[in-house]
């Protein structure tokens, strides 16, 4: 079963459009002028180290929090002017399990539908379809407490879709799941993208962001520092190549000094290896200077980016 397409929305207009978002807590700017957009059928990955402002940005866009400045439009609706209409088009799959443990799996979907107005049409049929799509039909009359981690996530996703939202926020959707369950959740998310939902994803798993996100927004200290495809973002923030050498090699210190003198970013130490991000000419200069040193060159990954962001914050 595929989900019914959200009601008509011009395809060239982003479902989510946020501009100049600012949020302060106790005088500190946690979100500081963030802009973001997400279109139908697109997954936008929000990445950043702890405290970068990902969760607060998500909570602002999802309507949990009011921004101190900036605008948020959901499917063309100004969130501040008509929060109820905007909330009708949005859903959130929270990191924690926030299903209602006093209800069965089916009861959770029924109860969730009562928190929306107007209530979703043909709700019984929709619940049956969601239970089937997420493989929950055999647990329909059981309490969610008995479900495994993967099936709890499925219930969270099914609950989030009960009112046919245009935009779904996924906050760390696979944290704590085993590899098999993660893969299954990824497939479900991918199917939602194909159905035309706009999805905003925050995650700590770089492989997850790499596989799922069409575009990335990198946050550091509450500000967007890069946006675009993962290749573009990596090129902007990390470099074209990552050079890996043995950190125990006596020459490692010489490499550090060389990098410093060349105005390159400080190499990152990961266990017993030293990682140095370089562009093409930089790699050529390194090879000329350290030709007799054993090293590997690989393309940059989001892990490199994450380490770099974590180091700076």
């Amino acid at each position, binding site marked *: 079963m595929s989900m019914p397409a959200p009601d008509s929305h011009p395809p060239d207009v982003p479902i989510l459009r946020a501009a100049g978002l600012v949020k302060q807590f106790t005088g500190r700017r946690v979100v500081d002028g963030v802009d973001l957009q997400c279109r139908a059928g697109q997954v936008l990955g929000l990445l950043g180290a702890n405290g970068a402002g990902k969760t607060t940005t998500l909570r602002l866009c999802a309507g949990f*929090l009011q921004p101190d400045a900036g605008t948020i439009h959901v499917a063309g609706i100004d969130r501040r002017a008509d929060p109820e209409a905007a909330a009708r088009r949005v859903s959130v799959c929270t990191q924690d399990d926030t299903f209602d443990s006093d209800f069965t799996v089916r009861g959770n979907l029924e109860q969730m539908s009562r*928190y929306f*107005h107007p209530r979703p049409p043909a709700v019984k049929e929709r619940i049956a379809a969601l239970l089937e799509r997420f493989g929950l039909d055999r647990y329909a009359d059981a309490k969610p407490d008995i479900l495994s981690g993967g099936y709890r996530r499925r219930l969270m996703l099914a609950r989030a879709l009960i009112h046919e939202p245009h935009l779904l926020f996924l906050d760390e959707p696979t944290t704590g799941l085993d590899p098999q369950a993660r893969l299954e959740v990824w497939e479900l998310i991918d199917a939602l993208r194909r159905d035309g939902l706009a999805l905003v994803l925050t995650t700590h798993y770089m492989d997850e962001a790499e596989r799922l996100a069409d575009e990335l927004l990198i946050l550091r200290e509450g500000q967007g520092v890069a946006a675009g495809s993962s290749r573009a973002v990596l090129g902007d923030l990390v470099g074209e190549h990552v050079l890996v050498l043995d950190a125990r090699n006596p020459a490692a210190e010489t490499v550090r000094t060389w990098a410093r003198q060349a105005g390159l970013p400080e190499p990152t130490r990961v266990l017993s290896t030293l990682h140095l991000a370089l562009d093409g000419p930089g790699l050529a200069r390194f090879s000329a200077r350290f030709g007799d040193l054993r090293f590997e060159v690989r393309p940059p990954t989001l892990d490199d980016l994450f380490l770099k962001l974590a180091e700076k914050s």
Partner: protein
Amino acid sequence: MTFPPHYRAAVQWQSRAVLGRHLTVYRRNWHTAVLPPLLEPIILLLAFGVGLGGFIPDFAWRGRPVAYLAYLAPGMLAYTAFMTAFFQALFAAYIRMHYQKTWEGQLITQVRLEHVIWGEVFWAATLGTVYALIVILVLAGFSLAGWLHLHWAGVVLVVPLLFLAALAFATLGLLFTALVPSIDHMNIPFFLVIMPLGFASSTYFPLEGDSPWTQAWLILNPLHHLAEGIRFLLLAGEWNSHLLAACGLFVLMIGVLIPLDERLLRRRVLGEG
């Protein structure tokens, strides 16, 4: 006239949806949930009203000789509405907020925090009133048995008054839900609020005294006015100023505590403010 958003939320559909959620859960478990509120007044009336009352043959209330069982009955009604609403809004709401994450699950929908708060307050007040109605049924049984003589016409006024009281005490309970650092600190509101407010309030024994402290306490304690107001209605069949004082204090509590609860819970639940 437009009401501020804190109060406008009381009549919006989202608050009814939250209340409906609590009713649905309770309806499923009513047969086990109803036993304690049914048995407790029977036991208390037998133990204190009949048992202890048997040792107080010359009990008097405001100069009128009354059986201690009759004195106790209105006090129990007031105490039940107070205790049930306060306990629900404090303990049960805290569990839903902190452990079950029911609130967070509601807040990702069109329901906002002010609706969650009103839903909790209405639910606590509904339960407080229903439990008080159960006490009324038990009192009716005692009346039919010829052990208790009350002016039953007064019940028509007593029930809405108890609902208003329960609403006010629920807003007080939610205040502590917002303030207690953890569930281990729940005994603080119990000892600081429930015990002094509940017992020094003419519910189980007459509280009198000429000292300014006692007088101030009696003027400000809404439970005292509630218990005495109901007592005048059910024992003497008389309208009295305690009813007005109780209503005034309850409206004041709701008016002040709802915005305060919302502000503190916004900080606690959403990290805002």
